[in-house]
């Protein structure tokens, strides 16, 4: 080992270049992330309407949040509904489509395009389209249901059906998860299936013991991304309900309630408190998923 000495000219040059090249991100971190995190936490302890300077209020915002704002619990419940029901359904459907796409099909590129396009279609356009497709009287879905002898529900007009309607609409975008699964499926070595087949494993057993374990890191990735996305659910419901979260607050999701508090009621401090609660809830959920993933995610033989 050489004794410690002054940094060489090369080391100093590297430090200078390294910082210079990373400068955009360093600025980003300081101005758009670090300062805002600190400010947001401070605001959450203040009354702040964005016009007058913030006034210290201690834990008042948090107290109101948990004890006096029924809409906070409504919006949290609505959001958890999407996490508990919408997310698993979407994950399963996108995996199912990926499995279908992983067969040798004629016109594969066409299939992939049709399945994938809805997920990159502008959300505003998608939401307007589905507002019309799910129209209780004249919509496509209820017309088709009627043809097979079923009377469709009120979908977005009914407090009981509005969230399932949004989940249905979200399924149209399942192609986004599908391409990620598909890439994962195509990375599974064919020999594994051949070996399983020689051992007498049928299709179901191969799926259970080869496909699922090999795909588990991708499932984890889609689950985490879906989790974060579910807590941010906003644009669709803002367009469909014009920001009201109706009918009867049944689609008032957390991010929408927060937006309304901040930019409609100008209760910025309160909205910041909501944001911190959201952050904690997201962290707890992500942590729980990561903890459980040790038991169900398989990373192959290689050390990671």
């Amino acid at each position: 080992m050489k004794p410690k000495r002054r940094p060489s000219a090369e080391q100093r040059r590297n430090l200078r270049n390294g910082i210079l090249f990373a400068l955009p991100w360093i600025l980003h971190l300081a101005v758009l992330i670090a300062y805002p995190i600190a400010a947001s936490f401070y605001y959450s302890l203040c009354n702040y309407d964005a016009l007058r300077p913030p006034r210290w209020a201690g834990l008042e915002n948090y107290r109101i949040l948990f004890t006096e704002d029924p809409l906070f619990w409504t919006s949290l419940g609505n959001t958890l509904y999407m996490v508990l029901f919408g997310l698993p359904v979407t994950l399963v459907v996108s995996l199912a489509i990926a499995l279908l796409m992983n067969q040798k099909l004629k016109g594969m590129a066409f299939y992939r395009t049709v399945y994938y396009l809805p997920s990159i279609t502008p959300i505003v356009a998608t939401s307007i389209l589905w507002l019309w497709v799910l129209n209780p009287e004249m919509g496509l879905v209820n017309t088709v249901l009627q043809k097979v002898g079923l009377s469709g529900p009120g979908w977005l007009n009914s407090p009981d059906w509005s969230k399932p309607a949004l989940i249905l609409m979200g399924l149209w975008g399942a192609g986004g998860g599908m391409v990620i699964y598909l890439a994962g499926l195509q990375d599974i070595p064919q020999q594994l299936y051949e070996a399983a087949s020689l051992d007498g494993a049928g299709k179901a057993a191969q799926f259970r013991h080869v496909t699922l374990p090999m795909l588990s890191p991708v499932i984890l990735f889609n689950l985490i991304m879906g989790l974060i996305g579910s807590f941010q659910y906003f644009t669709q419901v803002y367009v469909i309900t014009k920001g009201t979260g109706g009918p009867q607050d049944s689609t008032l999701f957390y991010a929408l309630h927060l937006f309304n508090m901040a930019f409609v009621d100008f209760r910025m401090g309160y909205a910041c408190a909501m944001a911190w609660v959201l952050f904690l809830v997201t962290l707890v959920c992500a942590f729980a998923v990561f903890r459980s993933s040790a038991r169900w995610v398989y990373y192959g033989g290689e050390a990671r």
Partner: protein
Amino acid sequence: MSGGNPKRWGRRALGTLGSHLALIGLGLFFLPFYWLVITSLKADAEVFAMPPVFFPKVLHWENFGRSVNYIPFFLFLKNTLIICVLSVFGAVVSSSLVAYSFARIRWPGRDPLFLVLLATMMLPGQVTLIPVFGIFRALGWVDTFYPLVVPHFLGTAFFIFMLRQFFLTIPLELSDAARIDGCSEWDIYRRVILPLSRPALATVGLFTFIGAWNDFMGPLIYLNDERMATLSLGLQQFVSQHGAEWSLLMAASTLMTLPIIVIFFFAQRTFIQGIAVTGLKG
């Protein structure tokens, strides 16, 4: 003998079932698109006809002309394109610079800073939303495009991460050879790394473009002046104000979706490869 083996027959039946399911799914996914386009071509009377008309007798192409006059479509298009083009430029330049620092230069503090970058990806945007709004408002940037564009010039964590992973795959010997030839770090970035990274840079550009084209919350917060609205925002306001003009709404939505479809067709490989890289190689 083909067909005589029950196991093989079973497998073939399963295969047929699979391709049938894929076809049914295809129909289900395609139908809303069909409904979008066909509604935008219907006469007003047909839009509300019961039962709904699946195949209109006359296609009213003039609905597209009416819809672009009903809302200031071309103004919104211009605004959207300005934001998209500047964002793409900013994202590609800044993210590649930062990724170069993380992947190709060895300096103290680099690895902790990279960990911080990864951690920020878990941070919900709502946490920083209000102070960032405060900063941009204090700068007098409300009702300008700056709040929507400038952040792209400061790099995006996700794209920096993605480009770093890509730059790491380029052999270090190339940089060393260039250094021996007297190239500076900037020359290496500009003349060695960037030309070798075109597919990855294209992916960043593409996703930034689509993201900016589709963005709604940003314009909603920062653009109050109707003449500054983007297509997403303008279309949403159009719904709030004239909710019942379905054929015109669908025509405008079709027009807004069309460029995305065209871009997808031309850049399909970039898309699919980009998603595979970003989604999996971590």
